[in-house]
């Protein structure tokens, strides 16, 4: 019984860390993959999936105790969870709240899927550039070869596990 109570508490409140809210339903695991959190880092993590949301209908939430996200990590999360809000918690209080924003151009972060694209040539000094075709579902376009890349591919590439 004690264990159940504890886990309920974790879902409700963490002392210090980050709460990523309003993740589109089903994407919490992808957020963990992108952050490289496997569960073996000795961090307390709560993953809540498919809960009711006024804004999204259904949403996922990820709470990570004792870990603050870097701005780079926040930007990457924006790609797969464009409505997410990031709450920084200190001593049980929200001390900062950020809405993620999908950048207009994604430079150097993602690899083009087209093996004949100039950006795939290791010896050429060229950095990949993608622009947004659609935010939901996420579709990006390579600025060099024009090829589309979908959210599934983006998650696979950005995933650290």
């Amino acid at each position: 019984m004690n264990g159940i109570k504890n886990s309920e508490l974790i879902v409700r409140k963490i002392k210090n860390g980050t709460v990523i809210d309003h993740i589109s339903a089903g994407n919490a695991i992808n957020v963990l993959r992108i952050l490289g959190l496997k569960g073996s880092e000795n961090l307390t993590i709560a993953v809540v999936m498919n809960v009711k949301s006024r804004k999204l209908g259904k949403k996922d939430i990820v709470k990570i105790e004792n870990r603050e996200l870097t701005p780079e990590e926040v930007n990457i999360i924006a790609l797969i969870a464009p409505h997410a809000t990031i709450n920084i918690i200190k001593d049980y209080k929200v001390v900062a709240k950020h809405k993620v924003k999908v950048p207009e151009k994604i430079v150097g972060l993602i690899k083009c899927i087209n093996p004949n694209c100039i950006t795939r040539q290791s010896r050429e000094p060229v950095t990949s550039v993608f622009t947004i075709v659609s935010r939901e579902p996420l579709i990006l376009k390579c600025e060099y070869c024009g090829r589309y890349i979908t959210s599934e591919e983006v998650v696979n590439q950005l995933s650290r596990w």
Partner: protein
Amino acid sequence: MFKGRDVISILDFSRSDLKTLFDTARYFEEFKGRVFDYLRGRILALAFFEPSTRTRLSFEVAMKRLGGEVVHLGEIKRTSIAKGESLADTIVMLSNYADAIVIRHRLEGAAKFAAEIADVPVINGGDGSQHHPTQAMIDLYTIWRELGKIDGLTVGVIGDLKYGRAACSFIYGLTLFDIEKIYLVSPLILRVRPEVKDYLKKSEIKFEEKEGLEDIIEELDVLYVTRIQKERFPDPSEYEKVKGSYIVTPEILSKSKKNLIVLHPLPRVYEIPYEIDKLPCAKYFIQAKYGVPVRMALLKLIMGE
């Protein structure tokens, strides 16, 4: 408007840009065989990393007719590229030697990349499977010259629409005009890419995908034919099965409008039999001929004073 600019995609150009280009090309057409002074003392580098006949020769002829000179990369195996020199380093060098560069490369985005590196204008002579902007200019010019207009026409594009850069560039080029309808005719595995289809939708161009010409030939004002390569089919027997549907025969043309014109970026293989050449609708050699005045116009507008 044109001076000093790069030519990467046909979509970098507006309809009024093309009007300027066409008027200039029309002017040069009147003086076939004459050598002008517009680019006297200027040098154009031809960096062809892939085989080419018409594009390379017509750029060379165009530059010489404008009074300028050309330098070639020549055979790749006799250059430093064969020793492993990167495209970037090759472009830096050419940019220091010449006043403009024409590049043809197997890799997609190579021309855009070269343009970012070079200090001089870069003209895409075909890269990857999407862009061949100067070919599209010639194709559109041919329609304008032969039919007097581009707006309001129904155009069929047949062949390899997935990997064929001339077809792809031509389709993009059509979006600059008020086309009645585009029919995209190809085997299922060689249909246009999603990004091209998306662009057609965004441009609000009416289009339809087909697997044969039979039911649409009567509607067409322009039939743009491209080559289907056997190597594109994972199973050679699949190619044998479909290839007949993509050959333009006199029988199929007998059902067309009287004023239909047949274009082809060339080289052709089997898709247009020789017997078609003598029909009045066959305009592909005239189209190739227009390559010189159109490229003269482009070079003059970009490199001239």
